């Protein structure tokens, strides 16, 4: 059984008078330890697919199963639990909370938990991505772009979720910082996480195991990066 199973997912927006189909019967599976890139031109439906994978956007039809759990059969509350337990997000432009220190940003997914040792756990994860405690006390605005990216990854993995979803994680970063983020994602996949990254940049797919190409809401290619044509 694959960690992520997408089965016949269709997503429509609007009403009967003005209906837009963002995804047509998309089916795919992602295994643990797999590093997949979803590619496609603007408006192709790749971001919609990512939000459905992230248990945040119920499909019009079809299903998403994570670790065998039918996600959209769950209540909103249980979906939130599932997001916390199974999914780590790396957002476009990283989206660190500006008024929280780097360490507090990493602790964010733990804030609603009653357990102790949150700080130690966050410090350990920060150290894993190369941020020491002193830098952890700084606000995001006091960190370099690369450091902010590493903090974003630390926040995504602090709960040790089996799935990492990254939405254009290098889109707004300089080449060097972008490279660091991609290396981190590769490392996570090598460590057993299923990593799904949305990108429109072919350079970002150099290290991925698989490219899922979306065109007009349908999977047009699902293969190794060398085999799926890069859309312009």
């Amino acid at each position: 059984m694959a960690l992520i199973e997408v089965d016949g997912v269709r997503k429509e927006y609007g009403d009967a008078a003005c209906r837009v189909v963002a995804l047509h019967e998309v089916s795919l599976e992602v295994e643990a330890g797999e590093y997949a890139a979803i590619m496609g031109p603007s408006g192709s439906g790749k971001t919609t697919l990512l939000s459905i994978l992230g248990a945040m956007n119920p499909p019009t039809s079809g299903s998403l199963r994570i670790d065998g759990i039918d996600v959209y059969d769950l209540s909103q509350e249980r979906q939130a639990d599932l997001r916390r337990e199974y999914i780590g997000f790396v957002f476009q432009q990283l989206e660190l909370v500006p008024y929280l220190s780097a360490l507090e940003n990493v602790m964010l997914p733990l804030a609603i938990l009653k357990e102790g040792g949150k700080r130690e756990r966050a410090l350990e994860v920060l150290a894993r991505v190369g941020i020491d405690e002193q830098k952890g006390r700084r606000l995001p605005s006091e960190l370099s772009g690369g450091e902010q990216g590493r903090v974003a990854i630390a926040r995504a993995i602090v709960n040790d979720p089996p799935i990492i979803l990254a939405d254009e994680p290098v889109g707004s970063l300089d080449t060097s910082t972008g490279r660091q983020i991609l290396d981190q994602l590769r490392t996570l996949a090598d460590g057993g996480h299923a990593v799904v990254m949305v990108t429109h940049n072919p350079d970002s797919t150099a290290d991925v195991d698989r490219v899922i190409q979306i065109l007009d809401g349908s999977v047009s290619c699902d293969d190794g990066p060398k085999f799926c044509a890069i859309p312009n």
Partner: protein
Amino acid sequence: MELRHIAFGNLRRRKGKAALITFGLAVAVAAFVLVLSLILSLRATMDDRLSRYGSNLLVTPPRTDLDLSYGGVSVSAAGSGEVLYLAESDLAAVQALGDGGRLAAVIPVRLEPVSLEGRTVLVMGTDLAESAKVKLWWRVEGSLPDSPDEVLLGLNVRNEFGLERGDTVDLGGRSFTVSGVLWETGDEEDNLVVVDREALTSLTGEGGRINLIEVTAASTSDVEALVADIERALPGVEVTSVMQSIEFNNQADSSLARFGLAVMLLIVVISGLVVTITMLTAVQERQKEIGIFRAVGFKQRHIATLIVLESAMLSSSAAVIGVVGGLGAASLAPRLVRESELGFFFDPLLIAAGVAVAFLVGLSAAVYPAWRAARMDPATALKYV
């Protein structure tokens, strides 16, 4: 890190909005404390003045006959003619009820017809110092009698007999000096000769006779209870409350309370709206941030808790600022209203009420923004839709 740290961090970052909400709440709290303090002060002042303005209870001997008067014309002479008196022990029993400052004054009154320069006048023997304290309408030309040989004349008596301050008069066969004349009261007092009660006793030679006892309660709100207590202590006596002053006071109280309530309600509603609108704007601005919180596993109730926590923190600051400001304004208000007996009224309950209002308004105003924030769709918030 817990939710309260996130709430505090957000307030620190959005200082302008936090300050605006705190200010709105603090104004409501200050206004509430000020208005409440003024109402209580006015009420206390009015109560005090009414308490001092004459007696509000009359204790008289039991009647044996029906009252034989109509339209101000008394035909009581047609009755038995028997006059009943209260005893000194009755006076002592009433005075005993005043322990603990419950009574502002207890004034025994004795009335006797006495011959003045060959004509009969009504002489009132009373405790003059006590009477002067509660009968604030008394204006005396000269001075109150301060010895048993002095009398105070009502204006009509002075005019009728052509007497002036310092004159000597023959009253019941004894010489008295006129110490003063009462200015016109428009009441029965204009026809009286007022002397010390002991002096009247020595004049008539009959002690221990009291026609009535005038009682002034320290608080008009206590009058009805006092009537019941006197009736219990002295079964059979007549106890009459002067209801007009009490009713006036009650009416004034309820009018003041209604006015104050309306003002406070208006301020509280306006302030609540300001806080709600400001918080709604803040929630809208934080759409993406809320989306991130939801994405990392926050449930709807965690988002709502965050907003309510922020409001509670701002309410705490507003409570401190508002209570201090309100009490400060209340302490300055009497200085601004000259010619007024209005004083600064302080009660610890004012602080409690101010704090309660801050939290009540702050938390109520946060309910709708918190609900909106909690219901925000994470995908929409993160612009995934």
